[in-house]
């Protein structure tokens, strides 16, 4: 009886206290015809030892590769302390801090998190997390629509935004009667500003600006922000939090700054781990605080006047406001925020700036090495953050297969399905985890594969 503490005596005593003759009688309110038989497709139990062996085997099957894939999930060094502390029972197995007095650890940490995220993004307020970057974007769009009462419900989204973010956005706002206008990219891999200028003022509620964008390129965020303002639209920034250590924060974009900032917190301490759990972050200007989805922690005082922390502005949330809530989100990604807060504390602003720098330099170096290979060229001519696109002399997929099978290299993300206009394009990513030798190894392998 794994995880059941009852002895036979306990069971007998308890049934008799209840006045129930048997376990079965406890289910006597369930109509007999509904009761199910044994679960034929659930295997018999394994002991922890057996399941450990199974999982070690499965883990081993996921072969390791030297990875240059980015595309929304980034391999960074995570200090050992981050997860050793995050998985302490008191963080790991705690519930949502509704009973504030018994949850000051989590609450203070969340307050510190909110402080760091507002600082990083240059905004006034932060919530305590969304599910992930893509869903945070969808919630940001809904938030913008809520706070922008007048006019047509329309959001302008550049094609330089991650294609999977666009798909998630479509799925999550689908029922809300919001138009989505996609803006093409220009030859430099940036949003085609002209296409936005062509839109009528007042004809859209908000503009989404990814920085860096999906190609790793830097958007002209000041111009875009000012343009959106001029058209009467709000600005939603989608940012990589590590890049913000070097980049102007969205709060300072253009004349006014962005209104809402969101993104995926994965680069702040979440392992790649097949895509999750990560967390979405969402910060905004002060005046939007009551439109924010998700939990918010505030500092207050106790009966003795001593400072303490508690969930606040709960009247926005589903458990109070129900069908009029700012979102249906309830369980969020708390544990990942715990990790991120410790991660940011250990790295600090300078540490994050160094990570960003090393990643950028590595990407530039790899780009140079690869574009020296005959037939390989860069797709765009400008520099960017820690991703960049190259074009190969032949179809990408078989090249990636050969790199993986023969060299143990996961060469990047094949752009050809999402951006057929770019040809045999491949998106690659270098973070601070890669050495010069790794980059040379990739270049040599690619040269060899292409040479035959």
């Amino acid at each position, binding site marked *: *009886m*794994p995880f*059941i503490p*009852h002895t036979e005596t306990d069971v007998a*005593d308890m049934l008799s206290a209840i006045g129930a003759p048997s*376990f079965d009688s406890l289910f*006597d309110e369930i109509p007999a015809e509904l009761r*199910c038989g044994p*679960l034929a*497709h659930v295997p018999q*139990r394994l002991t*922890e030892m057996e399941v450990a062996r199974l999982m070690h085997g499965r883990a081993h099957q*996921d*072969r*390791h590769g030297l990875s240059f894939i980015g595309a929304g*999930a980034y391999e960074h060094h995570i200090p050992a302390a981050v997860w050793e502390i995050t998985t302490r029972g008191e*963080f790991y*197995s*705690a*519930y*949502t801090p509704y009973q*504030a*007095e*018994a949850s000051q650890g*989590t609450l203070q940490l969340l*307050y510190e998190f909110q*402080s*760091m995220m507002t600082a990083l993004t240059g905004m006034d*307020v932060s919530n305590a997390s969304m*599910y992930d970057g893509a869903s945070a974007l969808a919630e940001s769009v809904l938030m913008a629509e809520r706070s922008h009462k007048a006019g047509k419900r329309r959001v302008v989204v550049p094609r330089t935004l991650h294609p*999977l973010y666009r798909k*998630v956005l479509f799925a999550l706002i*689908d029922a809300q009667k919001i138009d989505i206008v996609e803006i093409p990219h220009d030859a430099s891999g940036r949003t085609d500003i002209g296409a936005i200028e062509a839109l009528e003022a007042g004809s859209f509620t908000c503009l989404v600006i990814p920085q860096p964008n999906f190609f790793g390129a830097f958007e002209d965020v000041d111009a875009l922000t000012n343009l959106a303002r001029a058209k009467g639209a709000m600005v939603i920034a989608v940012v990589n939090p590590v890049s913000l*250590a*070097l*980049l*102007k924060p969205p709060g300072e974009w253009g004349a006014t700054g962005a209104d809402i900032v969101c993104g995926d917190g994965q680069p702040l301490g979440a392992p*790649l*781990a*097949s*895509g*999750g759990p990560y967390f979405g972050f969402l910060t905004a200007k002060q005046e939007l605080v009551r439109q924010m989805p998700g939990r918010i922690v*505030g500092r*207050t005082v106790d009966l003795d006047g001593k400072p303490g922390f508690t969930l606040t502005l709960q009247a926005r949330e*589903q458990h109070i406001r129900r*069908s009029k809530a700012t979102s*249906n989100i309830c*369980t969020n990604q708390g*544990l990942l925020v715990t990790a991120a807060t410790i991660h940011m*504390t250990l*790295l*600090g*602003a300078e*540490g994050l*700036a160094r990570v960003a720098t090393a990643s950028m330099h590595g990407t530039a170096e790899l780009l140079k090495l690869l574009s020296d290979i005959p037939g390989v060229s860069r797709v765009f001519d400008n520099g960017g953050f820690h991703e960049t696109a190259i074009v190969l002399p032949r179809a*990408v*997929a078989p090249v990636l297969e050969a790199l*993986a*099978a023969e060299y143990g290299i996961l060469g990047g*993300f094949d752009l050809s399905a999402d951006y057929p206009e770019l040809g045999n394009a491949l998106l690659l990513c270098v973070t601070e985890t890669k050495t010069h030798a790794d980059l040379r190894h990739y270049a040599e392998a690619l040269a060899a594969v292409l040479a035959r």
Partner: protein
Amino acid sequence: MSEPLIFERSSPGRSAYAQRPAAAADFSAIPEALRRKTPPLMPEVSELQAVRHYTRLSKRNFSIDTHFYPLGSCTMKYNPRACNTLAMLPEFLARHPLAPMSHSQGFLACMYDLQEILKDVTGMAGVSLTPMAGAQGEFAGVAMIRAYHRARGDSARTEILVPDAAHGTNPATATMMGYTTREIPTNSEGDVDIEALRAAVGPHTAGIMLTNPSTLGVFERRIKQIAGIVHDAGGLLYYDGANLNAILGKVRPGDMGFDVIHMNLHKTFSTPHGGGGPGAGAVGVSQRMLPFMPIPIVGKATSPPPLAGEGQGGGASGEAASFRWLDERDLPQSIGRLSTFMGNAGVLIRAYIYARMLGRDGMQRVAEYATLNANYLMASLRDKGFDLAFPGRRASHEFIITLKRQKQQIELSATDVAKRLLDYGFHAPTVYFPLLVPECLLIEPTETEDKQTLDLFVDALVAIWAEARRDIKYVKGAPYTMPVRRLDDVRAARQLDIRYQPKP
């Protein structure tokens, strides 16, 4: 002792040096206009300072690993440590979500197995693991209901029914899907008011969202009748699986007539709540809803996997892969993609490990012992004079006591009891939910707590009631032994202080 903010431990120029790359930051690579001018206000501390601060903060929390946590509707049971240790194996942590299939077969095998287990447990025809929490599972479910009606060209259905006892996420989700919500009252026995339901359904009914057993802690006995009424009206039935723990291996939502369900794997499948999340809200569907499932889903690679493309990568090695991702090419009517990659993979691995350790018989035992504990605790409290909200009913895995009488007689509120319990070393039950029962405590002991703990919990409640009769002011001053006394929530909302700002 209070713990300062990490910012208050910060000193300019300090760092956890081992953690940062050796080469200095270089802003010159950033175009001048895009460069950050002032560094963000973040702590500058040593590694020891960080470790000590967050270790000390952790000690200011209650948690399953340290305290009994009888939070109704939340299923705070033991989170087996093996689930964490094994989910954190280096290879699992290192796998990129877009890694090729050749480098993903171990992970995919786990996900495939989990889909199969959940299908069997719920009696549904298909399962998608991608939703990232219960509420997103609800979103997916209602989106599928909408997609189903649309696919049939039925655009008149604009309303979702929910019982008044429903969790807040149910109506909130309906709104996100563009539906209006209509509340169905509960009768005095805790069941759905069938007449009211009959009166409410019609051609405008898209569906009903039900939890069974409900958040009132009772099993809805006429579920088949309800299903008939809704189905006859052309609506669909949505099952909120938050309470699946109560019926695991005993009765299956699919057999009750539900069309779509979500499961809170962080409840029934015991993945940790993590101080607020992450969760996982896998959805299950009946046969006719299969085409609408959210993607990606793990399929068997009967045909060779698609070549590396968008979405979840492609096979990169010549070797035969057994599993592959199904995406929009396989499910063109899918409601789409709910997360960038495939949801909370690490949570799903934990749930999978837990399911394998429970096994077929263990699933049933979960329901049996969760129900035993709830009914025993209910009987014990009743015997000590506490009022049950539904005295004539069996408890499911949870039950409600109401302090309406105590509130009237001696001003003892559910909050007072909740706060004072903390001093006795017990986390409070869920209070003031469901909304329809005044001064209620929704109590869910779960199957992993032992009898001695339940008995001590009863003793504590009895003692608090006695204290309150003696000195209600004392109880209203609780807690006394936590890091802080009772906090001023009103001030928190009025004088909003939600980030650190250094004193000028």
